[in-house]
């Protein structure tokens, strides 16, 4: 009986610790899907498909300083041509 009590209390302690311990990376926060656009902070123009994503088609403002390569959804063709 005494032994049983001891095991249970050890388990209880372990359970308590498991619940109270802070999760690495923080708590899980559920976020819903959304869309947004990035407009040029220089001239206010949007980024259009045919003009590429790295520079503003109107004033040449640099949105991204990297050269895009083929990925899952972004392709090399998304680099702005008329810089």
């Amino acid at each position, binding site marked *: 009986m005494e*032994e*049983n009590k001891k*095991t*249970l209390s*050890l*388990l209880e302690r*372990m*359970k308590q*610790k*498991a*619940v109270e*311990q802070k*999760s690495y990376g923080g*708590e*899980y*926060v*559920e*976020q*819903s*899907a*959304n*869309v*947004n*656009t*990035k*407009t040029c902070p220089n001239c206010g123009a*949007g*980024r*259009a*498909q*045919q003009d590429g*994503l790295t520079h503003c088609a109107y004033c040449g403002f640099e949105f991204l300083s990297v050269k895009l390569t083929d990925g*899952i*959804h*972004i392709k090399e063709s*998304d680099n702005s041509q008329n810089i």
Partner: protein
Amino acid sequence: MAFTSKKATIHKTYKHKMSGFSKNKPINTQAENEQKEMQETKERFFVFIGKLEEKLKEFAAASIPELIEMNHTDTDEFKRGYLRLKSAVLGQLDSIREKASAVKEEKITYFPYASDTLEMSSAYIQFRNECYDRYSLLEDMCQEYRQRIEDTQVEDYELKYRKIVDEYEAIKDKFRCVQCGSPITIDKIYFTTTYITCPSCQTKNTFEPSSQAKLLEHIGRSLAEQRTKHILQQSDAAGKEERDLYHKAHQLRLSLIHEKNKEILHQKEKEMEELEQQRQEAASRQPILYQKYLRAMFDEWNKINPDLTNEHERFFTTLATHNNR
């Protein structure tokens, strides 16, 4: 009990052999003392292992229902509370096994004995084997409980996937271009942030999937494995069949050692040949079934998350090549 009688026989033989040599009397006494000590060590070791087994059983039996309950009640998306508890419980099991292993090494493997006689060596070997066998029973029990504890982790990936699909169906036509307000259709399930082009003004809109949809990458493989589990079981069964047939043939081979009757010898050899043929057939079937499982699992995975097909296929090639070695 069996050990005591065997040990007594060895002891008797030893005494018999040594009788009549009065100059060897001190060695005889030393050997007797060492054998007595060996017997006591064995008894203490058996009691010790028995107590550890009781502790293990009691602890595991109490923790399994707790783990099942926590798996159900943990509201965290990744069930991290449950996983922490499971790790802690498995850690306790490991510490019991480690404790037994350390004592086995100290008291059994390095049992000190000075008498350098054949009888003493065989008595030690018997003592060591019996203690090792007792220890391996504890290891088997540890393994069994470990499996039962692992089995408490039940996750219905089908349900999670269904939620992602339902959410996609609900939101796919709900968005509008931020620049011009035209409707934007989300053409498929995206699990990572992506650009969607507005069909009217061609503006690139950044679409950020929900936290739930982002989990598609993480649940994909587990779901595919869950869906193709029956093929893996067939492959495992073929592996087990091969092992069972091998053991059966091995038993037959052992039974032939003292067999003199030629008819029985011939009959058993024939049986062994048949068993060997069946074993080879099962052995060749197993890797084919495993390859079949891998292909089916990866096909399923590609269906669940088609955007990562290239990455999945590269992984498949690595696994398939490794399996064929």
